[in-house]
């Protein structure tokens, strides 16, 4: 990730909000607590509690059997995991998948959002059309794309053939095209969400900023880089980090498309964890995999968010 170099830059900026008196700070704290409390309650019961149990399992040899007996084994699961070549290979594939899908989603979503925000005709219709992929359950999406990619009965190859290109590519089964082919499906699925998020962000930019820039004689590209992009930065940061997490975490779509094939080329790390947890019923070992995934992804995101935060501050 290119952002990894960002933290090296140091900036000596003073903390944003001006210092306040003690009483005011306490009042603000209370206010903040009151605002957050409604979110906190369901989350503590239904998310944090199961999560803590899940993480704790990583340090045990628990199995999913009736009347389980297990003991705490400390870091043993992690030591074992270090030597698990399959897991790390799938981790690598997962990274390639998540990074490429996230980047393409952002670029494609940004383009579409700008078009939808531009004052074009049939705006309402095109917006709804652009969102429809969202309304399809993942399993239907996967089956639909399997039909499209079909080597001998699919419209993609038929279309390629009709313009004289090779029409016998076995998209999902060829070792070189399988991963790119599923990446395209991943982008297709994730685009509406990225687009809507960015579109909402675009609408939020006060119109006078653009007007001011126009009056200064800035062209379209200049206005985009000088006004639009900086204003959107917090939203771009939020949606890319979330997209990255989701893409890294998703496996059901790819599983229906390729079942991890051909030859393991599309085996994502979550699929691995799933097999270990549910098929092998080694929930302790699987939990260790989950913890490793969390640690690595959160570390990557922290670096990313930190660098973004810096640039954000720098831009202000």
């Amino acid at each position, binding site marked *: 990730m290119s952002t990894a170099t960002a933290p090296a830059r140091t900036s000596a900026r003073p903390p944003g909000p001006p210092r306040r008196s003690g009483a005011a700070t306490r009042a603000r704290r209370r206010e903040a607590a009151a605002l957050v409390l409604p979110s906190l309650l369901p989350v503590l019961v239904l998310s944090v509690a199961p999560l803590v*149990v899940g993480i*704790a*399992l990583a*340090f*045990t*040899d*628990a*199995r*999913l*059997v*009736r*009347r*389980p007996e297990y*003991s*705490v*084994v*400390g870091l*043993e699961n992690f030591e*074992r995991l270090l*030597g*698990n*070549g*399959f897991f790390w290979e799938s981790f690598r594939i997962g990274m390639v998948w998540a990074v490429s899908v996230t980047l393409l989603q952002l670029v494609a979503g940004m383009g579409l959002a700008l078009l939808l925000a531009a004052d074009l005709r049939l705006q309402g219709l095109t917006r709804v059309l652009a969102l429809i992929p969202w309304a399809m359950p993942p*399993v239907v999406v996967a089956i639909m794309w399997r039909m499209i990619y*079909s*080597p*001998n*009965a699919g419209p993609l190859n038929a279309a390629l053939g009709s313009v004289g290109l090779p029409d*016998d590519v*076995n998209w*999902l*089964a060829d*070792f070189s095209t399988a991963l790119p082919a599923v990446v395209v499906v991943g982008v297709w699925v994730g685009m509406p969400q990225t687009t809507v998020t960015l579109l909402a962000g675009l609408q939020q930019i006060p119109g006078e900023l653009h007007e001011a820039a126009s009056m200064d004689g800035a062209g379209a590209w200049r206005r985009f880089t000088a006004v639009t992009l900086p204003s959107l930065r917090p939203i771009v940061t939020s949606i890319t980090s979330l997209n990255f997490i989701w893409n890294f975490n998703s496996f059901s779509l790819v599983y229906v498309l390729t*079942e*991890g*094939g*051909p*030859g*393991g080329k599309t*085996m994502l790390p979550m*699929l*691995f964890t799933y*097999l*270990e947890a*549910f*098929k*092998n*019923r*080694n929930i302790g070992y699987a939990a260790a995999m989950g913890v490793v995934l969390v640690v690595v992804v959160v570390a990557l995101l922290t670096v990313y968010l930190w660098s973004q935060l810096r640039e954000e501050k720098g831009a202000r």
Partner: protein
Amino acid sequence: MQVHRHPRPTRRTAAVAGPLAALLLLTACGGGGGDEEPAAGDGAGDAAEPVTLEFQSLSDQPAAIEATQAVVDSWNAENPDVQVEIVPAGWDGIYDKLITQFNGGAAPDVIHYEAASIVPFARDGYLADLSEYMSDERRADIPEGVLESVTVDDQVIAYPTELQSYMVFANRGLLEAAGVEVPSGETMTWDELREIATATTAGGVAGLGWGLKSPTAAFMTLGPQFGGEYFDGSGADAELVVDEGETALPELVAEMTADGTLAPVTLSQTGSEVLASFYAGQVAMTIQGSFQAANIATDAPEGFDWVVLPPLEGPEGAEQAANPQTLSVNIDSEHPEEAAQFLEFFTEPENLASLNRADALIPATTSAQEALATELAEEPNWAPILASGQYFTGAPYLFVDAYAQWKDTVATPAFQRFLAGETDAAALGEELQAGWDEINA
């Protein structure tokens, strides 16, 4: 799994283990509770109140849903004290649902599934031993190999109901045009299959199409015909064996692909997808699950003349590994005896015959097979399919603990690489073995 532990329970580990144990204890105790609150609101524990059994059924074909309902209705009419309630569920995702239900103590009383997937639940202690409930009559009626596939540690853990075998479907027109006589013996050897495939391969037509998108299941099932057992022993002690018997079939497929008699595009497709090429006359024959006979009957273009060839036979016989659909009883069911009686009723010959007819599958008992054969004497394509029913054999892979993981992470990718021509037989064997060793390290 050979995880060697060093349990040094310090105070800190005890503190961590405390809440965990409590939660998991809840799991264990919850087991019995799950059935105290069945959907039918029988809150008061009145003695006269009928027992309600939840039956989670996976039947998906409309006809099979009807057949299942009919069997249940007649049971309910005959047994006012024991009412069975069907809870429909889908095949897709059922494993995840079951594992949560079992661990959360909320599994239904009667569970429909298949041997390969239900055996792990039996190993983990979730299924009732049905040995003492199964009548001698039924036991004698189930072919030995099939009974073996539902026997875990000498306990019968399920009643087998429906089976499928791999059959060769042929386009009669293409065979005749190539001057091939449609085989009609008791069985057909793989050599004969190859000969026909070679004879029918010409001008854009490949002799054979085989949907091997998930190659492992096919190779495990047909392996016994070449002496390929793949596993020795069971449970955590099982050992993988990859020898000539195991690689014979994959090599045969590779040879046929190389000489053009097997259409390469089909190797990465599902069986159903290959059927399109079969209907279009691009492949003369296709190896498919026997149930596809029903789909071919509805989907084939009008006038398409197809025939089911005799069961395949390899150098070691015509055996195919049995992986029957099953009905099991939850060990925490309050009424295991009643549930077993229901299973006994469900597997009576006429019930199994009607269900299998609806699903186009092979009944798991000899008498139901015979009943179906008499019923369908007029339909020539059913004869070879039902005949394949006598060749089912128990399969070691069903009882191997790490099989599911090995299949998905090692075997399937390795077979796919081999079939795509990326590796040779020696490398295939090494990959299978090395992956197995790594999983079991």
